[in-house]
């Protein structure tokens, strides 16, 4: 009897078994199925029970409320909104207000955070101490307190509309917020926009050319005078040929408030200020930690090449530090976005205030509204971290790690 050689198990089935059941094989697979089924069953049971109990208590349920008329006013809205619009519209008004405050807050927090973080490591004694003092003061006070401080103590102390602080009779600062002239489109706007677009594209092309020259031929090409000339010159030519692109609607006092002009409500200003200065303190610490994580030798290498302190930081240290800074920086961005829900304390109409607040108490549909709101914050956070992960991936690639 010939002995048959043992066949190796076919690759595919082995791989499948490993993927589905891990080391435990098919038995493990069966266990996983039971586990998932149990989870689904519990989820269904919670859902069905909630539904039955809401019905028994005759609490309204379902998502029909989204098409009902909201019937309340909102002080700031990026899209046209009237009291006769639906709760769906309210949802988008709130969402855009949240995104606005989060987006602008993130930009300011990043700028302040980097300046302070680098400042803390400055060889200049005074700069380092001021930056250190800022971080210790701001990050150790509760955020809600800071929001109320900016809102009530700083902006609230500004004069009323009739005694506004005016700058050139065009800008008015008062306790109702900042009023600035509103730009209005004129006939020259199209030509002007095209000119700017052209100038930007041309500048980018110039930069690509300059970098190629630097990397391939080692030649430093100075491009900034051309870029400035393009960015200023082209639009100027367009204005001369086609007329002014914008006219300004100057605000003037009428009745209780200003009429005309563009208005920035104080709630928005206070919330943005508080969120960005608060988060900046944490970002500053991340930046400091990131820079300190780069070997001291890198700094010395820069110095021995004849780079200035600033240039060494910018070209050598910070790009390497970014790898360490990025993950906690993402955390701070997410924190800022989530903290924006404290807006309700000062009456800024963000998502949490108008949707999970007013809409919820008017319709009483807590479960649906909280579920939607949670889903939206989750989505915003996931998108933010996805963008940051992509940036991190590019950074690592360019550093060759």
């Amino acid at each position, binding site marked *: 009897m010939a002995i048959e050689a043992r066949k190796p198990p076919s690759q595919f089935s082995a791989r499948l078994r490993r993927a589905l059941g891990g080391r435990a094989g098919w038995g493990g697979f069966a266990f996983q199925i039971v586990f998932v089924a149990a989870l689904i069953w519990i989820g269904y049971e919670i859902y069905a029970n909630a539904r039955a*109990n809401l019905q028994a208590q005759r609490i309204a349920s379902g998502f029909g409320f989204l098409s009902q008329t909201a*019937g309340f006013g909102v002080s700031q809205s990026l899209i046209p909104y009237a009291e006769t619009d639906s709760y769906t519209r309210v949802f988008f008004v709130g969402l855009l207000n949240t995104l606005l405050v989060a987006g602008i807050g993130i930009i300011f927090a990043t700028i302040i955070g980097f300046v302070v973080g680098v400042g803390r490591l400055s060889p200049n004694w005074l700069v380092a101490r001021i930056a250190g003092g800022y971080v210790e003061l701001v990050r150790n006070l509760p955020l809600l307190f800071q929001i109320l401080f900016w809102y009530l103590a700083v902006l609230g102390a500004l004069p009323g509309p009739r005694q506004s602080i005016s700058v050139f009779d065009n800008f008015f600062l008062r306790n109702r917020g900042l009023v600035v002239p509103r730009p209005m489109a004129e006939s020259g706007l199209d030509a002007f926009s095209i000119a700017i677009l052209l100038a930007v594209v041309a500048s980018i092309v110039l930069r690509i050319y300059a970098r190629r020259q630097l990397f391939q031929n080692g030649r430093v090409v100075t491009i900034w005078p051309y870029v400035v000339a393009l960015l200023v010159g082209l639009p100027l030519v367009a204005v001369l040929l086609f007329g002014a692109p914008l006219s300004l609607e100057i605000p003037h006092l009428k009745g209780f408030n200003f009429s005309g002009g563009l208005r920035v409500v104080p709630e928005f200003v206070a919330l943005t200020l508080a969120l960005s200065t608060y988060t900046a303190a944490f970002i500053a610490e991340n930046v400091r930690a990131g820079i300190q994580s780069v070997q001291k030798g890198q700094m010395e290498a820069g110095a021995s090449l004849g780079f200035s302190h600033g240039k060494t930081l910018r070209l050598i240290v910070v790009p390497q530090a970014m790898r360490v800074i990025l993950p906690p920086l993402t955390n701070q961005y997410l924190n800022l976005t989530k903290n924006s829900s404290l807006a309700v304390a000062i009456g800024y109409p963000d998502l949490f205030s108008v949707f999970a607040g007013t809409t919820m108490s008017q319709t009483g*549909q807590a479960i649906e509204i909280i579920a939607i709101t949670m889903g939206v914050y989750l989505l915003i956070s996931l998108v933010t971290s996805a963008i940051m992960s992509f940036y991190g991936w590019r950074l690592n690639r360019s550093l060759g790690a």
Partner: protein
Amino acid sequence: MKRMLSVVAVALAASLSSQAAFAQTLKTVKDRGVLSCGVSQGLPGFSSPDDKGNWTGLDVDVCRAIAAAVLNDPTKVKFVPLSAKDRFTALQSGEIDVLSRNTTWTVSRDTSLGVNFTGVTYYDGQGFLVKKALKVNSALELNSASICVQTGTTNEQNVADYFKGNNMKYEVIAFGTADETVKAYESGRCDVFTSDISQLYAERLKLANPADHAVLPEVISKEPLGPLVRHGDDQWFDIVKWTLFAMINAEELGITQKNVDEMAKSTKPELKRVFGTDGNLGEQLGLTKDWVSRIVKAVGNYGESFDRNVGAGSKLGIARGLNQLWNKGGIQYAPPIR
């Protein structure tokens, strides 16, 4: 945070417990030995804590009257301060047994929120508080004004209706709590603070110079304020409803905190029914025969409570007006105890 907790509690209660848990509020309260009552976060005259931490007010008296009727002790009440937008969630979730917090009775609240209003403790209407320095005499002069309002109230919707109806522009800034709203009004962020008129008077007392502020003459809405309970427990609904009716009937019958013991000895058939010396009306409610005596001994009749908290005998000094009894020119009216 508390709000999120109660929302989670609603979800859990709705999903995990069976209906029966909500149906036995009377038994739950008796077993616990304390009535859990939702009140405002401090509105003088209606519900506010004094310097010793004792809650007083018209809404508070309703809670104490229920505790007296059910537990025979008006002090066995746990007061839960709630903001306007959290109040219904707290009731739905079972965190409180009754909500007695200057809450306006409307059809949408009575139906879709899963609650039942039990009666009217105070007939109110919405008005506007302005600084006298603005020299405004009528609400119709408020075009393009900034208005501070508390979020989650009927006031927020009424003001939208009123300005739209009169073709006036306005800016509304909605705050989470009454204190934040008043603070913003005081700091000059708004020209106008709008709320129920009783509340305007109460909040004005808290301002630095109450005399610098005036309530405009317009009343732009009907705001019948009253206590409310959850759907699904008719017995508890009856008890809360009839506690308030007992207070109003007591005033009508001339029963006061002082003469209640005298009156209880009366041989008049009507009074015998009320005091339970004849029949068992109290027991039919799930209470005791002497339920009315307990209530009146604890908080007095409706008129006494009104005077002590918001009326002539209080700092607010609000006239009875609509809240006078029906046979004295007002519209306060309770079905008979028989």
